[in-house]
């Protein structure tokens, strides 16, 4: 018996080791494309941005020198804090509007879509097969003073003459809400889809009417989806510049527009980078606060 153990030993170890190496490497090999993508297109630009924010640029020459200080940062915040607040309010408004619009849609598709669920989801996404810019420009046409909406309203004297939408905050929020709707609807759909319908039966069985069952059962169970939808809508909307650029006016400039101008119009790389760092910090702070309020378990479960 001892002999068999001794002779077996080396034979059993070698293939195991080989299998072990392969098995241990497999996850890393599989994550390599995603990892490279993350490093090249996220980590590297982020590092570049952080480095640039430590430089100081001369407005006259456009040349930047490394000063290793965030001296630019308070200056920029001081200059553009109004645009930060505008962005925050617009993004929040658009996110709330999207949640209110998307929840019934997602609920209906998940609970009443039947075998046509996928069809309805694709219908929801069809407008988004068109480029972001083109979609927003179409909104510009629709909302313009000669567009269908205002022509109809003014002809029927439903609004006073000289009434306009384009250039107002409403137009920007509407554009943001429209463009980010799928980012709200899809996570909501996934969360609601996972709710066991029998739990709803149980709620009704236990004297909960429709309102009460929604508030006590559906809403709490959809919370991870609401959280994900919030993050996926609010964060890009917060940094968005295109909607404001196309649909907004001078009075409602968002921080995204400022950053874009810093980089592409004023060539103030340090200033733009500083503002981006602030934007990132504010976003992270928002996520952290939200997570603290709602608990991180929902994120772990969902994202």
């Amino acid at each position, binding site marked *: 018996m001892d002999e068999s153990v001794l002779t077996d030993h080396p034979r059993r170890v070698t293939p195991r080791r080989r299998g072990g190496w392969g098995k241990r490497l497999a996850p890393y090999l599989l994550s390599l494309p995603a990892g490279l993508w993350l490093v090249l297109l996220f980590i590297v630009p982020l590092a570049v941005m952080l480095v640039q924010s430590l430089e100081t640029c001369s407005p006259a020459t456009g040349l930047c020198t490394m000063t290793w200080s965030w001296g630019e940062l308070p200056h920029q915040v001081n200059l553009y804090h109004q645009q930060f607040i505008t962005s925050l309010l617009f993004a929040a408004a658009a996110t709330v509007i999207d949640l209110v619009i998307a929840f019934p849609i997602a609920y209906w598709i998940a609970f009443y879509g039947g075998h046509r669920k996928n069809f309805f989801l694709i219908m929801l996404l069809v407008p988004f097969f068109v480029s972001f810019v083109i979609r927003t420009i179409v909104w510009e046409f629709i909302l313009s003073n000669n567009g269908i909406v205002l022509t109809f309203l003014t002809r029927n004297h439903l609004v006073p003459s000289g009434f306009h939408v384009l250039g107002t905050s409403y137009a920007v929020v509407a554009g943001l809400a429209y463009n980010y709707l799928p980012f709200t609807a899809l996570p909501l759909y996934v969360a609601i889809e996972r709710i*066991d319908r*029998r*739990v709803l*039966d*149980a*709620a*009704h*069985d*236990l*004297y*909960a*009417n429709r309102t*009460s069952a929604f508030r*006590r*059962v559906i809403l*709490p*169970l959809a*919370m991870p989806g609401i959280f994900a939808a919030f993050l996926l809508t609010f964060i890009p909307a917060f940094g968005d510049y295109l909607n404001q650029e196309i649909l907004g006016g001078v009075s409602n400039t968002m921080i995204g527009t400022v950053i874009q101008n810093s980089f592409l119009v004023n060539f103030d790389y340090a200033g733009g980078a500083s503002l981006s760092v602030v934007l990132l910090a504010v976003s992270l702070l928002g996520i952290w606060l939200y997570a603290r309020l709602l608990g991180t378990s929902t994120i772990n479960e969902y994202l």
Partner: protein
Amino acid sequence: MGGSLDTTDESRSTAGATTRSDHPVVVCLEDVTKIFEDAPAVDDLNLEIYDGEFFSLLGPSGCGKTTTLRMIGGFEEPTSGRILLGGREVTYLAPYHRDVNTVFQSYALFPHLNVFDNVAFGLRRKKLTKVEVARRVGSILEIVDLPHYEKRKASQLSGGQQQRVALARALVNEPTLLLLDEPMSALDAKLRRQMQIELKRIQSQVGITFLYVTHDQEEAMTMSDRLAVMRSGKIEGIGSPRDVYDSPSTEFVATFLGASNLLAGTLEAASGALSSVTLTDGTSLSVPHERVPALAGSTTLKVGVRPEKISIGVAGTSVPAGHNALRGRVRVSTFTGVGNQYLVDSVSGTELTVYAQNIGQELAPRSGDEVVLTWPIEHTFAVVPMTGSNDEESTNDEE
């Protein structure tokens, strides 16, 4: 809760397992029909369930028993007919307006709530005070034997514990009627036996009327005061387990509820209390007159006897008075410990199953032996041969 507890105990001792028709009717179904996509799931059903009773709806999957339960709970609306609960019509009333609670097949516990909040859900909707909610939740968790589990999440409980929570969540509201939709189907056999006993204990303790839906005939028989056997949306037999078992009204009931030996024959003229049936080989058997079903113009029927009612003896054994007798030859004899099971080819061409208890008899017949089967006439019944296309249902009784 205390008052109703007394009445239940009283009724159990007096009425026994036979009937509670002297009790008030809790649920009444009048000509209830439910049609799903042109096929009737429940077909002109009439049913009365009495206060304090443990009533089972038994049948194979697709027989309409769950649909019946869901209509009483308010989750489905009947296509036609009326449902009365405690004398009040509730046919189209929403579930949250009915004094009925349900233990769902999969329990359907609220995954975002802990045990306490799950159980308190109904009481809070009824706007009870915090103190009262806490008191009642505590006492019901005591009854279902789950104290100190208040803070656990549903996902942290075992199947049996989840079932107890589901039971507590429904019972805590002290409904007029508790609906149980195959609550044992997710449990393993051992836990199932244990929970059957538990459920009976809890029912007698709280004194609430139970309507129990199951496809497990043994479960229905061991637990129920009364049961109804359903097939294709209709009730084929109703009564105490003993009555339905001993005097099955149809061939389906005879085969679905326990095992039966059924012999095809022709009804001859009745003489006094006994009717005479001639089998295909000419053997004549007697059936108590009241156990012969009404035959619409035809005289063909099936004579039945339960396997455990038959005595097996060597050929030539004298037949005692008041007994039916049938000759045959043992094909298979199996020793099962508690007894012997025989498969006997009878002279009428039908194979009969016989269970003989192991009471130490020396001469057990062996394969190939010529035997005579005897059984008391009062244990003989007759049924109309099964027609219809739902024969396959009886075989797939697992959901």
